[in-house]
């Protein structure tokens, strides 16, 4: 014989104000918890999806990022002739020698400058990155002052829109196309002709060489050979690994901040749930006594109050998740501390975060409810009945 669930339900309903206040406290905590998880997930997606597993990035030994790196023309040509480089459908090698520099551009609306990546690209650059797609306009003509802008550049920076011009390196550059790269880091880049950009920025060397592996499993052998080649001073990484390394600091920052916040907040929410449940028990001494007199056992009482607490926190958890799902509409644009350049990413809600957040709210409800429920079940029948 169990106490009907409706008893717990209707109790919450009777004390609406208290229920709403406690549940909204829990909802806020779950909201923050879910948002932080979504943020780090979005960051991970933006940086890891930027790379493809069977692409290799080659930069100068000891440099952390393409911006700091310099690969001399002769070294780039040596890499180009390696047997691991894949051949495209047109018989050309799927390899791009690229230049990466940062320029500071003013944002639309605020005029505040931010650092933007300009990538000098060659014709293989697009096929090497299947996630980058031209969505408006056309591709720039080789050898001209025409550029492509990523979608988030077009939206957020002055002169980044189709047909507009950006001035740098003593020249005006016309944006002739907009490309979309989903939520990856490429969306915050500007692409132009590598030879033009090298002469404008007076760079005698490329920044990096990117190519597709003919056989994805051949990477280790290639890496060992290239890094021990006396003619080369380069290091090779899979593109996925390269981009994950770039965001280590940012990810660590969000992780530490998120953990500290969540820990402190959940303590607060558990206390809130405890206060509510304790007072619920105190207010219902007579009811508990009556139920015990009717023959319900201690464990039924315990169970009924636990259910009530879990219901309360679950309601809060659902509300928190509901509101945090709207965070997906937001784009955070910030500076990546490591590469020093603009990085835009969104909040990403995954199924894992969904159930983690709900589980988290239930755990809070459990911890908050277990002591009051135990107190309720240990009450002495006679004394409890006298209270009312």
């Amino acid at each position: 014989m169990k106490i009907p669930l409706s008893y717990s339900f209707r109790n919450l309903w009777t004390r609406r104000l208290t229920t709403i206040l406690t549940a909204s406290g829990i909802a806020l905590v779950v909201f923050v918890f879910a948002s932080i998880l979504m943020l780090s997930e979005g960051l991970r997606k933006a940086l890891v999806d930027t790379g493809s597993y069977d692409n290799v990035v080659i930069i100068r030994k000891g440099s952390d990022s393409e911006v700091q790196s310099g690969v001399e023309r002769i070294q780039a040509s040596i890499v180009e002739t390696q047997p691991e480089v894949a051949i495209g459908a047109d018989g050309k090698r799927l390899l791009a020698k690229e230049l990466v520099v940062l320029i500071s551009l003013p944002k639309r609306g605020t005029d505040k400058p931010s650092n933007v990546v300009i990538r000098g690209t060659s014709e293989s650059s697009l096929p090497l990155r299947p996630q980058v797609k031209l969505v408006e306009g056309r591709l720039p003509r080789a050898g001209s002052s025409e550029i492509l802008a990523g979608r988030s550049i077009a939206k957020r920076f002055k002169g980044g829109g189709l047909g507009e011009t950006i001035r740098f390196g003593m020249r005006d550059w016309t944006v002739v196309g907009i490309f979309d790269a989903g939520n990856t880091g490429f969306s915050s880049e500007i692409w132009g002709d590598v030879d033009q950009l090298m002469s404008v920025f007076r760079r005698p060397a490329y920044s990096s060489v990117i190519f597709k592996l003919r056989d994805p499993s051949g990477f280790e052998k290639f890496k060992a050979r290239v890094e021990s080649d006396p003619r080369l001073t380069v290091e090779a990484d899979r593109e996925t690994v390269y981009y994950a390394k770039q965001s280590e600091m940012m990810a660590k920052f969000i992780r530490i901040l998120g953990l500290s916040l969540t820990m402190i907040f959940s303590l607060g929410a558990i206390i809130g749930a405890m206060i509510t449940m304790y007072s619920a028990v105190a207010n219902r001494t007579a009811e508990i006594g009556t139920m015990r007199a009717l023959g319900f056992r201690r464990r039924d009482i315990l169970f009924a109050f636990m259910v009530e607490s879990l219901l309360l926190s679950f309601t809060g958890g659902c509300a928190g998740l509901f509101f945090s799902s709207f965070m997906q509409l937001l784009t955070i644009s910030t500076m990546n501390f490591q590469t020093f350049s603009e990085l835009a990413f969104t909040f990403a809600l995954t199924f894992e975060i969904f159930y983690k957040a709900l589980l988290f709210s239930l755990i809070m409800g459990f911890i908050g409810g277990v002591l009051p429920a135990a107190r309720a079940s240990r009450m002495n029948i006679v004394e409890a009945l006298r209270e009312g």
Partner: protein
Amino acid sequence: MQLLKLIYKNAFRHKLRTFLTIAGISIAILSFGLLRTVISAWYVGVEASSANRLVTRNSISLIFPLPISYKDKIRQIDGVTNVSYGNWFGGIYIDEKNFFANFAVEPESYLKLYPEYVLPPDQKAAFLRDRKGFFAGRKLAEKYNWKLGDTVVLKGTIFPGEWDFVLRAIYKGRDKNIDETQFIFHWDYLNETMKKIAPLRADQVGFYMISIKNPALAADVSVAVDKTFKNSLAETLTETEKAFQLSFISMSEAIVIAIQMVSFVVIIIIMAVMANTMAMSARERFGEYAVFKTLGFGGAYIAGLIFGESLFITSIGCILGIILTFPAAQAFGSAMSQFFPVFNVSVKTIYLDIASSLVVGITAAIIPSYRAVSIRIADGLRRIG
């Protein structure tokens, strides 16, 4: 007097609930204080910058260098009293995890320009003599346990190779908000080495630091400097040191805004917890309030009881939270020292703590007071729990 006694007695009628509420509030105040401190740590570079200094960099972006020949041209501009120059070195000590700022600068003029770095005179002389020497902040030297005369090797990222330096001096900050985790060495060492390994990249500096006669000249001097190099291969952008530091922060503004929003959410959470407690207490005592009214006490007295109790509980929680903020900031600051070299709880944060707990205490009492005052005596006496 009678009222105060009643408030005190009422507050501790439900010992457990009051204790839990106080704990909840102190936790919230603690997290609010921490978040505020994070934000102020973000702006520490701006706080520490002087109005008498300008920074000149390449107008394309910071990663492009400027020729060393600009130094004398800048020196000739009216209002300029001193020029120093340097490069962001960006070297790695053993592992990328050990991040700290490291610069190559022209030492004599740099130390004149930045009097806030206090070096003992004998160490300063030793540093200036040794071209492989460097000086480091007190915190940095303590963290890696460097002693004077130790050799430290940095792996270059922007400037390739393994670079070895000798610790010749340790500086202390003149004020509390000076970053004591920097690593600064001779620009000549960098330049002579670059001449050997990459002659094209020699004689280039990352930024010029300019001191001016008085802050009022900042705009004129900035314009004059930029005009001098207009239409050259390396155009410049000159701004006050504050603006220069702010430009870094504005790039990561999104995070600051997010943290600010979260700290407001914290306040709302405490409000919810507190309002909850007050609503319960008032509901339990409606019968008593009706008795008060029967005896002839006015609504103000009853409202005073509820407000007093609410403020009493919040202020205890607030005091506890403020006390706890300091050790917590210490722990958090050392975990995040890589991001926040300076992490101090400011007086402003404490004032904000107090203000927000007052607001919470008052807001939480409004609805219960209104109900208690407006309830009719007969209803109040009839009402149960």
